[in-house]
């Protein structure tokens, strides 16, 4: 569904990614792991069109989208949840969702709002509350709900469980698995390697802007050297 082919990208003159290739199959959960600063966020931003691409291609459903502007990708069904600043703190929960559905008709919006509230009942309860007053976990749920309400086919999540208590992180993980069951494809960056290997179909490890491992979660767990070196796994 999504093919990142030999991409070198960065920010202006600052190159971060060096010939990165990643493949995301339809209905899969693909996790990007790697140390801080290894380029996970940069790769996700590249898929959404927020970086400078020097070479290589990004194809989505067979279509070259390497240089397509972000809002056009949004229209193709790609949704992106940034790592930080992914909700409007001064807007209420419902206003945030309304903004996420900015390009959608009112009827479709109300319909999907209902579904999203079904998935996250806490958001319905707090719909009049300012997003800035939500807890970290609730804010992540809102962020994911904002990606969902656009009826995305491919959802890009940058560390959706960052800074969450284990229980809240597990809830988010369950939600992601639930999304896959509904046929949605997910590409995510994670610090929590245990959680990622738990839910992902395929795992990539980035280091210094290069892919140093790709394979199934089982393959990764069979490589304790990698786990120790890059992921803090001691098992």
């Amino acid at each position, binding site marked *: 569904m999504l093919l990142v082919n030999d991409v070198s990208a960065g920010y202006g003159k600052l190159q971060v990614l060096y010939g990165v290739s990643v493949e995301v199959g339809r209905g899969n959960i693909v996790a990007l792991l790697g140390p801080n600063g290894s380029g996970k966020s940069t790769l996700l931003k590249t898929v959404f069109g927020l970086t400078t691409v020097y070479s290589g291609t990004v194809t989505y459903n067979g279509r070259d989208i390497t240089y397509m502007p972000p809002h056009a990708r*949004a229209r193709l069904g790609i949704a992106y949840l940034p790592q930080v600043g992914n909700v409007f703190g001064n807007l209420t929960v419902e206003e945030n969702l309304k903004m996420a559905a*900015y390009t959608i008709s009112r009827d479709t919006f109300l319909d999907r709002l209902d579904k999203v509230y079904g998935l996250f009942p806490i958001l319905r309860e707090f719909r009049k509350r300012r997003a800035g007053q939500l807890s970290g976990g609730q804010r992540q749920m809102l962020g994911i709900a904002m990606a969902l309400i656009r009826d995305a086919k491919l959802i890009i999540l940058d560390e959706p469980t960052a800074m969450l208590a284990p229980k809240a992180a597990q809830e988010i993980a369950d939600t992601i698995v639930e999304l896959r069951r509904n046929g949605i494809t997910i590409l995510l960056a994670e610090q929590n390697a245990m959680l990622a290997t738990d839910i992902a179909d395929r795992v990539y490890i980035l280091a210094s802007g290069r892919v140093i491992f790709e394979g199934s979660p089982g393959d990764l767990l069979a490589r304790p050297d990698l786990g120790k070196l890059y992921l803090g796994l001691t098992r």
Partner: protein
Amino acid sequence: MPIVDVQMALNAVTYSSIVALAATGLTTTFLTTKVPNFAQGSFMMVGAYTAIYVALKWGWSPYAALPLSALLGTAVGLAVYFLVIYPLRRRGANIMALMVATLAVSIVFIGVMNIVADVFESAGVRSRDIGLSFLDYRETVGPIVVRGVYVVTPVFAAAIVFALYILLNYTKIGIAFRATVENPELARVMGVNVDRVMAMSWALSGMLGAVSGTFLPVFLRIAHPNIGDDMLPTIFAASVVGGLQSIYGGFIGGYIVGLAETIVTRLLGEVIQGALVYRYVVSMAIFVAVLVFAPRGVIGLIREGGRKA
């Protein structure tokens, strides 16, 4: 005689309403494009001279100039955005460059307004040192003179702020405005046309400046082509005092600074007999005090207080 009499209170509230409208415009464009707009006074002059023309040439009530003022103000606001702000921002101009650019616009405008005044004069419309208060409705109640402008201006200002509230909270474009103010990057990711929101804020600011300016020649005894720029220190003080992080900051600050300016100036005038009291001293003193002691303005104080509670 009491220190604050009814007549003075009426004057103070009316003056404050004029300041509040213009300052709301100033805050609006600061929120979206982060430019302290020195051309805000120019927007007021557009309104003032529309009122003068409509009243003296067409013989209408100066209040009848409000729709035309609003329209012209909107057009001028959009023109400043598209001809000056947008191209500069695209080239990555910093706040200093943008600020100086609006200063240049305001200087050009003083020239333009002087030409407009000359053209009006040659068309038989008195345009220099002219007031329209003689055209206003007035009634003497005991010792107090009640003027139409005392009622129309505050009511109009209240209606505008109510309309703004509705716009910002109950319309999609209004919510997009608040989203853009908070995080333009994220708004863009959501598919909001951020440039359009910014253009809209300049249109709104031009409109607010012009309607505010429409009341000036009716309220003051004399108006002249620099009248808007004379208001600039007061308007800037109002925006900062109210708090630049909320669109309502300009409105609240307008009343604080406007009332203080009128009342304190009067008090000083009575203490220092015969001394000329320069009214900007008051607004600038509040301005500096707020910058030092409460840089987030009154709205900031209210919010911080609310958080502690």
